[in-house]
């Protein structure tokens, strides 16, 4: 095994045993799951915790003065505390549970967008955003009259920081909303620099951490951003749970997004008084089992250690860069200096869907298409790509196998 992997004490073979799904076969071939960027597989610890919760400690939260509800409430709030530690948030109340990253960004676009931003203010996004961090801002622009600006991406697939600065220059941008790691290019954006730059021009910074939070330690107090979102299912947790972290003073200024139970302090037939943060943003019965599952997922990755995971993934990224670059006729989309384990590529002789079908026959699962980033594919003038994305259970051998299959696939179509 690779030296770097041994040095961190990270044993990928042992990690793989924690994921029941990885031992199955697909069409008679061992599963090689390279679509963790879309959704990651779940370790036994997450599965068991969720099942155990439903079997022994489930009831609605914040409502019942009975033992089970108290147990469930404590577990739900413990999940909030775990997320706060995971992000190094200054205050647990800054953690708002949503159903997904998408829901978290929509929350900010509605509440901060309509409640704090004014017509004539501008929001700055980038060309490499997932549709989840593009469409909510287009909707805000159309409904509320804010201007939407788009920062360019360089040919190497990095955020064009000179363009970011130019677009902040006139001081009208009040919110910068960009990805912390591209789900197509793998590019990691310079979060701290973006925060400094945004603040110097009077703007707040929202980072979409859907990909980044899975692959490296993210520290809210060190980064200095104002909003951060991520989702449970890419972090080896369940679907249906997402997180919005926001600075306390901003969350307090923001009006509620969804109205309903649990988000009110007082309500009459005429009016309501919103609850305090974070309950103000958690209308209705929250994703209770999912939050507890996310807690288990965080405990799981922390038991391995984000530093060890990062080091393992660095080995995978280096291997994939070398192996994929060596394949004749293969174009890699994005060659950023700072990147994570997401590789989008196109073969000269085969369309992405044909390629994905072939790879499926070898047991390899990759995504094909435009990966919810249609404008980015237009930017690079590519119809569609295949994307291999790695998780902590991905092995160097799997990457070698992918490279071998790609060479054979090219022969097949030539």
């Amino acid at each position: 095994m690779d030296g770097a992997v041994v040095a961190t004490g990270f044993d990928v073979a042992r990690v793989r045993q924690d994921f029941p799904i990885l031992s199955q076969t697909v069409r008679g071939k061992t599963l090689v799951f390279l679509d963790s960027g879309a959704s990651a597989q779940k370790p036994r610890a997450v599965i068991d915790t969720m099942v155990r919760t439903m079997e022994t400690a489930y009831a609605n939260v914040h409502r019942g003065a009975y033992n089970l509800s108290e147990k469930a409430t404590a577990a739900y709030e413990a999940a909030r505390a775990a997320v706060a530690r995971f992000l190094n948030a200054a205050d647990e109340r800054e953690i708002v549970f949503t159903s997904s990253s998408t829901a978290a960004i929509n929350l900010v676009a509605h509440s901060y967008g309509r409640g704090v931003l004014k017509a004539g203010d501008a929001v700055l996004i980038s060309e490499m955003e997932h549709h989840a961090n593009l469409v909510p801002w287009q909707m805000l622009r159309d409904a509320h009259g804010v201007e939407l600006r788009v920062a360019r991406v360089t040919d190497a697939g990095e955020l064009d920081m000179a363009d970011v600065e130019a677009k902040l220059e006139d001081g009208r941008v009040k919110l910068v909303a960009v990805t912390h790691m591209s789900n197509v290019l793998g590019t990691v954006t310079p979060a701290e620099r973006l925060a400094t730059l945004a603040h110097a021009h009077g703007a707040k910074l929202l980072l979409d951490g859907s990909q980044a939070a899975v692959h490296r330690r993210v520290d809210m107090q060190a980064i200095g951003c104002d909003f951060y979102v991520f989702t449970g299912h890419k972090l080896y947790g369940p679907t249906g749970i997402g997180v919005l972290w926001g600075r306390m003073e901003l969350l307090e200024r923001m009006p509620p997004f969804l109205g309903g139970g649990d988000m009110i302090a007082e309500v009459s037939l005429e009016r309501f008084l919103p609850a305090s943060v974070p309950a103000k943003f958690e209308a209705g019965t929250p994703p209770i089992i999912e939050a507890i599952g996310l807690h288990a997922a965080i405990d799981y990755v922390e038991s391995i250690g984000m530093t060890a995971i990062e080091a393992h993934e660095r080995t995978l990224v280096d291997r994939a860069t070398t192996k994929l670059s060596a394949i004749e006729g293969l174009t890699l989309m994005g060659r950023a200096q700072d990147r994570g384990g997401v590789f989008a590529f196109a073969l000269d002789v085969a369309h992405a869907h044909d390629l994905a079908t072939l790879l499926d026959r070898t047991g390899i699962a990759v995504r094909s298409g435009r990966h919810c980033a249609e404008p980015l594919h237009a930017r690079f003038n590519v119809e569609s790509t295949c994307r291999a994305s790695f998780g902590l259970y991905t092995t160097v051998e799997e990457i070698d196998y992918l490279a071998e299959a790609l060479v054979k696939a090219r022969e097949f179509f030539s």
Partner: protein
Amino acid sequence: MFDDLRDLYQEVILDHGRKPRNFRRLEDADRHARGDNPMCGDRMELWVKLEADGRIADAAFQGKGCAISMASASLMTETVRGKTPAEAHALGDTFRALAMTGTCPDCGAELADDMERLQVLGGVSEYPSRVKCATLAWHTLNNALDDKQEAASSE
């Protein structure tokens, strides 16, 4: 590594995918439609020239997409020439059934020759996510014949 994929990617499909027939714009077309599967990125434009009696005199297309979608459009333009719009619609319905089920028990004698040509695409039925690639051209043809302005989609 991929031997068992020859059912799906038969030589005819690879050949039509690489060198699609009737891959051109028909300048004097009577009908025109676009097909677009935005999720996967298959796109085509189809032109149809009609005879005085309404039969299809010529059909041609241009587009970008996977081997299955290009081969299907190519084979379609070869197959529908000389057909009335009603016959072309019926053939499209039969083809969609073939793509979804892999068999064509109700084909009937009058469609037998045409379906034999299209049979090579029957392998997609084993790949549910790829059926839409094979049927996009036929959806686009329906829109052209029915004079519909909106882009056809099979997603």
